[in-house]
């Protein structure tokens, strides 16, 4: 028997997502955004989801579509005010969706902390700002820091460039972003990958996400290019 995390059907890959689940969604803008996994989740139909991502979706595909389908009750992100973030804006203004704003570096560090077994850490980011209110603070060497806590999830949706059967992943350029740290921070990490490369990635020095952080892999050879899709007015489903 060989370790093999490949799954043939993208619908099977997201089949265990349940109502009320917390889901991390990789990507920064469209780079590294697992659009096809999100669309499979729309088909799957889970409701009352909490989404942890950097943004709140663009247009009416990917995360924008998931929100548009009213499957998301809360978004935890650093920047939900993109001009194309239309579905979130509409629901936010009607008080139909919750938002937790987290500074981008704190968001990244909270996610990495969950993956690294660190329940809390201190940071100078946001000290003296409204985002520090109600947070514990502590002085180290005479300087004030606030306590931030780990951010974990039931599922992580990841987009990668290459994967082997172990789930060793590499990424393309700035599509790396949140994907490696989110893969560490979820109970189940589901990856859509452009290329399955067989036995192993060619160079063990070049593995960015080691397979230990990956549970399920599905191949999506020609993922949607979000910018073009939105410009073309595409809507999912």
């Amino acid at each position: 028997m060989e370790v093999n995390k490949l799954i043939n059907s993208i619908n099977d890959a997201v089949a265990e997502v349940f109502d009320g689940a917390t889901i991390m969604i990789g990507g920064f803008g469209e780079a590294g955004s697992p659009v096809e996994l999100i669309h499979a989740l729309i088909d799957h139909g889970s409701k009352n989801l909490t989404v942890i991502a950097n943004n709140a979706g663009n247009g009416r595909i990917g995360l924008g579509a998931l929100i548009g389908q009213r499957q998301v009750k809360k978004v935890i992100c650093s920047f939900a005010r993109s001009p194309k973030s239309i579905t979130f804006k509409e629901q936010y203004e009607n008080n139909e969706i919750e938002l937790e704003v987290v500074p981008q570096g704190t968001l990244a560090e909270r996610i990495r902390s969950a993956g690294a077994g660190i329940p809390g850490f201190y940071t100078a980011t946001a000290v003296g700002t409204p985002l520090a209110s109600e947070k514990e603070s502590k002085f180290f060497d005479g300087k004030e820091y606030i306590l931030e806590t780990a951010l974990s999830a039931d599922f992580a949706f990841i987009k990668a460039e290459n994967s082997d059967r172990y789930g060793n992943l590499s990424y393309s350029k700035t599509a790396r972003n949140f994907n490696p740290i989110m893969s560490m921070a979820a109970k189940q990490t589901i990856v859509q990958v452009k290329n399955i490369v067989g036995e192993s990635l060619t160079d063990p020095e070049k593995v960015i996400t080691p397979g230990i952080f990956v549970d399920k892999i599905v191949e999506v050879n020609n993922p949607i290019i979000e910018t073009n899709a939105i410009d073309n007015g595409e809507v999912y489903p």
Partner: protein
Amino acid sequence: MTNHNIQSLKPGWNRNEIASKIANDLPHGSYVNLGIGMPELISQYVDKGKEIIYHSENGLLGMGPPAKEYEIDYELINAGKKPVTILPGGSFCHHADSFSMIRGGHIDYCVLGAMEVSEKGDLANWTTGAGIPAVGGAMDLVAGAKNVFVMTQHLTKENLPKLVKTCSLPLTGKSVVTRIYTNYAIFDVCDNGLKLIKMNTQINFEFLEKHTDAKIIK
């Protein structure tokens, strides 16, 4: 602010002139993060005799100029989500590593826009309190970069001073700004106020004080 005042306002330096002044102040070999908007103008004014390494917080160190039409790759973008290029000596990393560069004090300079800056160096630039609150990486940058430069118009669109005694808007960071570049002048943030470093020749000190709520030190 009366009509008389508005009519008497001088434009001072234009955006490109401010960008050029900042570019001159960035030392050779420094690691620099340029915020979205006006600060993006700076890199084109950096003297060819200097090499500056640009950081984009979405995991790109050694960022090059915006991508030309034929270079566009939507997986090679900057923090403003625009297609860019990578220079020789550049590298990619994930978000926690990228923000370690910022938060760990490894970025020498960041340049950001401002809604308000106080005489203590407090910065407000992320929300007016209305609409969708969205912070991005601004709070990390001001808390972590070694030098935090603000690049801004001296006055708001309503011709009110942006350099104030105390910020009225929600803060991005407290006592974080080290230097301010406006169309009227350049200031260093000091313990007892904003120290005037350079002033546009169109204006005089009286005018500057009149349009600045923060304490200015000559």
